[in-house]
């Protein structure tokens, strides 16, 4: 056995340990969930509602914020401006903040005394304990995933292609929509899926903003704290399965979208 293969073996063993650490608790949870309990949870209307709420609120938050986040990512990838590095740091802040602290900060902003809360109350909307407040909490902690992935995607598009498009007569807007966006599409979708998934799994920030209506992570916590592990487990398993299905569906959709961009009639008209 040469040196290289010893190194490879060590790397493989270490990798397996890390993988085991991630998989073992999940597999354990699946194994310890009894079939009858699981079926009861699947039929439970409260669980349905909370999972559905989690999915659509996280998806809506991701979709709405992507309208601003994607052009912002392009700006970060392509333009130089003062304090750009500071801004890059600010974008990553939600990742390092304790999520309950993020929730507290956001609550101050969206409660009736806060700026956004006051503005929303003018149109009769109370953001606290409301799906829109949950969406804001989810977006706050998950936006960096979309912005960073999309920024890397735009940065990887050769500037030459954008210059060529300008030279061929395209306006800056056309270049963005026909060259930069389609070529960064895969990274943007990855970021979109990451943001959606991260938003869906958020507990800390959401629980501060809205205990009710209950999103799935809050429901799981409530079942655990009120009734114990056995009662929380089937809901967790069900939520994980639904979330996985949703993520796979999104991935497949994004691949189809990518194929569409190879169609010559799809880009410019």
């Amino acid at each position, binding site marked *: 056995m040469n040196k290289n293969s010893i190194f490879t073996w060590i790397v493989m063993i270490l990798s397996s340990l890390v993988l085991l650490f991630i998989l073992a608790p999940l597999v354990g949870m699946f194994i310890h969930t009894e079939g009858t309990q699981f079926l009861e949870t699947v039929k439970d209307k409260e669980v349905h509602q909370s999972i559905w709420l989690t999915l659509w609120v996280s998806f809506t938050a991701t979709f709405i914020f992507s309208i601003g986040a994607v052009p912002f990512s392009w700006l970060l990838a392509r333009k130089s401006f003062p304090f750009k590095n500071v801004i890059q740091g600010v974008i990553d802040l939600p990742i390092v903040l304790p999520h309950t602290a993020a929730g507290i900060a956001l609550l101050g902003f969206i409660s009736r005394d806060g700026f956004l809360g006051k503005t929303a109350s003018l149109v009769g909307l109370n953001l606290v304990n409301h799906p829109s407040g949950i969406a804001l909490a989810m977006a706050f902690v998950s936006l960096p995933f979309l912005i960073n992935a999309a920024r890397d995607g735009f940065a990887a598009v050769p500037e*030459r*292609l954008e*210059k060529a498009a*300008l030279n061929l007569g*395209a*306006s800056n807007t056309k270049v963005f929509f026909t060259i930069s966006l389609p070529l960064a599409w895969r990274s943007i979708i990855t970021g979109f899926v990451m943001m959606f998934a991260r938003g869906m799994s958020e507990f800390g920030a959401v629980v501060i903003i809205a205990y009710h209506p209950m999103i799935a992570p809050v429901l799981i916590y409530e079942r655990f704290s009120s009734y114990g592990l056995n009662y929380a487990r089937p809901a967790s398993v069900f939520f994980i399965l639904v979330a996985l299905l949703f993520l796979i569906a999104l991935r497949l959709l994004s691949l189809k979208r990518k194929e569409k961009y190879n169609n010559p009639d799809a880009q*410019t*008209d």
Partner: protein
Amino acid sequence: MLRLININRRLGDFALTDINLEVSDGQYYVLLGRSGSGKTQLLELIAGLEHPDNGTIILDNVDITRQRIQDRKVGIVFQDYAVFPHMTVFGNIAYPLRVRKADKKYIAEKVEKVAETMNIKQLLERSTNKLSGGELQRVALARTLITSPRLLLLDEPLSSLDTSLKDDLRGLLRNLNKAGQTIVHVTHDYGDAISLAKMVGVIHNGKIIQEGTVDEVFQNPSNRFVARYAGIRNFFKVNISGEDGLLTAVTEQNVRFKLNGAKLVSDSLLLVKSDLIVLTNEIPEDKELNTIKGKIAEIIPIESGMEVTIDAGDLFYVKIHSSDMKKLRLIESQEVWMSFPREAVIVLNGTF
């Protein structure tokens, strides 16, 4: 007509300095320079992808220095083609017309016509990531030509093609130019300049150091850099003395040259055109010729025959045909005579 007037542009440590250039309509202008000489930057300034710090760019009597890229009617084909990878060949060529919201039928007709000229009609529905370098080059050219540019800028268009494809594309570019297309072509390849250019400019360290027709530039290189481009390797530092019309140049190794000329600086750089050097086994009788005796140091095969390196104190490089090689029965370490007329000796002004 394109005119660049006193163009300056600084990019970090590098600068384009005092660029003045004139390209008349229907011209094929080749800008020759090594990588890093500033030739691509100059093209990008003309195309409007970058802006000069100062100076003026005039196209057809209109100052386009600050004009939008899209309004210049200057087409550029990049060295790496910059073909859009997410579109088919058709999508690429149709792109300029689509962004101008042209009619679909018109686009289809125009694309087909230009694809036919470029001989890529059979590729139209293909994805661009399955094309060869030569095919990509034609797609990039077709995509630019469909805009009917007033001026076509080519950045090293032949550099990554193999020899047979190069010949094909050279033919295509020549025909385009014959049809009236004004072309500015930048390259590091002397062969491109010889085979395509009507006018040549040599750019070095951000400055155009010589300009003229191919013959003017390569028959009378103004300095060592340009001479090297023409394949001339026989350079000598010399001390020149004597009266007007009867000058003698002597190298540090005491090799002596007879040369024509007047009022030359005493310490100069001198070159000998290697194609005018004749090798013989005996001393030539013509006293007017320069005759130098030396020993063959090396014989190496080259495309057109052999290159013989002769040590005469200084090293001389002489290209000879294979048949002459056999006739003279040259071998390494053999002593030979080199002879060449005074016209073969050129004294250079710039000595860098």
